[in-house]
């Protein structure tokens, strides 16, 4: 059972302001209930498969500067810094 507090807590965790928590509550509830079907899938003993790569395929340790001054093309402050509100 998912509560309104749960939704509010997760919205905070994911840093999104939500106006109509109730609407989302109903939808999320329905979807999470649907996810419960996974309990019937009979997969407890399954091992999770992973993609592998060899050490030799990894990138060489070389310094290659990016072709242009990136900060000029993003939000910037005094040409060089990125500005953010302070964390409390």
């Amino acid at each position, binding site marked *: 059972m998912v509560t309104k507090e749960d939704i509010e807590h997760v919205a905070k*965790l994911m*840093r999104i302001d939500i106006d109509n928590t109730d609407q989302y509550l109903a939808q999320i509830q329905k979807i999470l209930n649907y996810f419960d079907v996974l309990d019937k899938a009979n997969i407890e003993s399954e091992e*999770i498969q*992973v*993609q*592998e*790569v*060899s*050490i*030799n395929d*990894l*990138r*060489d*340790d*070389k*310094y*290659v*500067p*990016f072709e242009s*001054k*990136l*900060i000029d093309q*993003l939000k*910037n*402050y005094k040409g*060089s*810094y*990125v*500005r*953010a*509100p*302070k*964390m409390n």
Partner: protein
Amino acid sequence: MIGLEIHCQLTNLQSKLFCSCKANYRSFEPNTNVCPVCIGLPGSLPRLNQKAVEKATMIAMALNCKTPQKLGFFRKNYFYPDLPKNFQITQLNVYGPSSIGEQGKVAIEEKDIRIRRIQLEEDPGRLIYEGASERTQITLVDYNRAGTPLVEIVTEPDFENPRQVRIFLNVLSDLLENLGVSDPALEGAMRADANVSIEGGPRVEIKNIGSFYDLEKAIHFELTRQQSLKERGMPTSQETRHWDDKRKITISSRTKEEDEDYRYIHEGDVPWIVMDSESLERWKKNMPESISSKKDRYVTKYGIPPQVADVLSSDKYYSDLFEQAHNESNAKEIANIITTDLMGLVDTREKREQSKLSPKHLSDLTELIQSNKITRSSAKNALQEIVRTGKPTSEIISQTSLGKISDESEIAKIIDEIISQEPTAVKQAKENPQTINFLVGKVMQKTKGNADPAITLRLLKEKISSHE
């Protein structure tokens, strides 16, 4: 009980952990050592640095850790201005061991400190506060450091006091420098957090400690704080505190770290790396000789006294010099020179960078000493010139006439000069033979320590006794 969490940058790599920007960001203007990957632009993907895996594995091996069969990376998800993707790519040991090392140990003087795990991860950017005031609402962010390769070393809470912590950190710094993976003297290259608890009490984490010196102070403060709470029958809360550098105390962090749920998931853009035994063997072979091994070798092979061998082996600069300069016959002498006369001349990073001394200078110098052409003390003076100018040893010796003066007439001439300049001292020496050393000293001064002492004394005595 004290445990440490040490973050060490792999400053000797050329590029960052997941992109080709420079690993050592220190000389750049803000936000000029960045690319779409390390600044987290939409559509960018991480590309793992092969040498970072190699170096981190060497650290794991040097700390006697077990290495996994497959290396995995995970995302630690949280929001912070210095985190361009709002997650950090790091390692965990969730579904079995997958971080670069675990269950190792490091010997310090009286005990072993157990290493719980080692992981490879990326450094975040840096936050700068605009204006000195605490009340400014804006933080300026510089992402030059974002993505720099970090090795995080987590110990078991095996430290019993701050002194052991200090020793351990010195051992670790020397070890990392010796491996050639990092330069711990660089600002910010090595950072440590601590967790402190007293018997029966909960663990308190201390973060935001600027230097190793502060670390000792912080641990000491925290132990005292917890002890005094206990004595007053008050409970210590399990929490995170940060070190306030100005007031030299630890303060409870009101950031609710307990609420933080990192929602760990596997890093889907970096497949699991198969640690094949061939690569591991090759890396192990390429590892530089360990400090303790060098020390043993210096003592047993060359008969260098353990104290001297200690200093020599634990400083990479010195041991490199020694390795290149020495041979069977002069090893002891070179070791001696390095750890006594040379030390004061190259004891800082700056001095070392400016020094023009080469291993050949050292071997030339010892040759001259061993063949009695110069005295130890004049060698010491010569060193100063060598470090400053780098000119060939022979040139410096002749230039400053630092050769040992054994020519009797030359010494006699100097003695005559001194005698005429120091009538009072001469008179005193005549009356009280002990005081002749003053005049010997004068001769040494004049000859920059090069006059043969025995000849000087004999001639002085002769001349004084025959003086009116």
